């Protein structure tokens, strides 16, 4: 995968598949520390110790259509390749927290790619799942932040789907502008 966006899409699909109703996505681009942190917290079904100990090997999956699960091992491998770290914690019935870091200036760190379209796809995957997305940029000890919270958006939309054309365009522009303003990607 040649876009960070695609890794995020893949990893967050796991949370949706795990029947999460709320996913917190935090992305912190810390230029001062040359570090990118991606944290995903979901309140999905979680994993037992036993499952958790296996998920990082590329041969584990609970899916039945194919015998290998690749999402998590790929993401872990990328963080390690980029001089970062990878941690996953999970509790059955509570949810899963995944934290990955990367060195920003590492040559192997793929660009974000088409994050706006990717994030929109995540938002519409299951409109019953709420996503609170916070993107922070830290530079010269100053923090800038962009937040996209589907709970807040849904309150405004009052029952209308964000898949409607004009609302889709608004969402994409809003995210694009917001990220440009803080120089996030």
């Amino acid at each position, binding site marked *: 995968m040649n876009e960070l966006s695609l890794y995020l899409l893949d990893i967050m699909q796991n949370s949706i*598949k795990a029947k999460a109703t709320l996913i917190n996505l935090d992305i912190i681009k810390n230029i001062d520390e040359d570090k990118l942190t991606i944290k995903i917290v979901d309140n999905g079904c979680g994993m037992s110790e036993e499952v958790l100990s296996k998920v990082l090997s590329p041969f584990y999956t609970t*899916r039945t259509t194919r015998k290998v699960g690749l999402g998590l091992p790929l993401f872990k491998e990328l963080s390690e390749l980029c001089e970062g770290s990878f941690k996953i914690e999970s509790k059955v019935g509570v949810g899963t927290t995944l934290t990955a870091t990367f060195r920003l200036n590492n040559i192997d760190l793929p660009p974000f790619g088409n994050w706006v379209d990717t994030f929109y796809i995540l938002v519409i995957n299951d409109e019953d799942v709420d996503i609170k997305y916070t993107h922070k940029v830290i530079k010269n000890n100053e923090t800038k932040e962009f937040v996209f919270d589907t709970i807040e958006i849904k309150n405004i939309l*009052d029952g209308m789907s964000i898949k409607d054309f004009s*609302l*889709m365009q*608004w969402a994409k522009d*809003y995210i694009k502008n917001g990220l440009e303003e803080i120089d996030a990607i």
Partner: protein
Amino acid sequence: MKSLEDLKKIREQAAKKMSIRDEKNGYRVVVGMATCGITAGARPVLNRIVELVAEKDLNNVTVTQVGCIGECALEPIVEVYDPQGNRSTYCLVDPKKAEKIVEQHVIGGKVVEEYLIEKFKK
């Protein structure tokens, strides 16, 4: 610059338009979005389909994302269910093919034979 304030206005306008729409005819489009699909290029395919459905105001069409459909080598895979529930499985789909699938099958009701998975499996 887009703001949450704009969203309120856009919502009002969209609501007016919505009330004059017709009912669902029930086409369902399913895109495989597991690691295998994503790696093979499912995101731009899904994106194109979602855009077209919104653009053409096909509010009677549902687009859903699923995990692995089980034919990883032939991803991206798009399945179309017609209102009677007949399934057509398209494989090795790219955004251009996705357009044709929407135009010809989902809007026009005619299966796009040349992209059917049966043509690729031995």
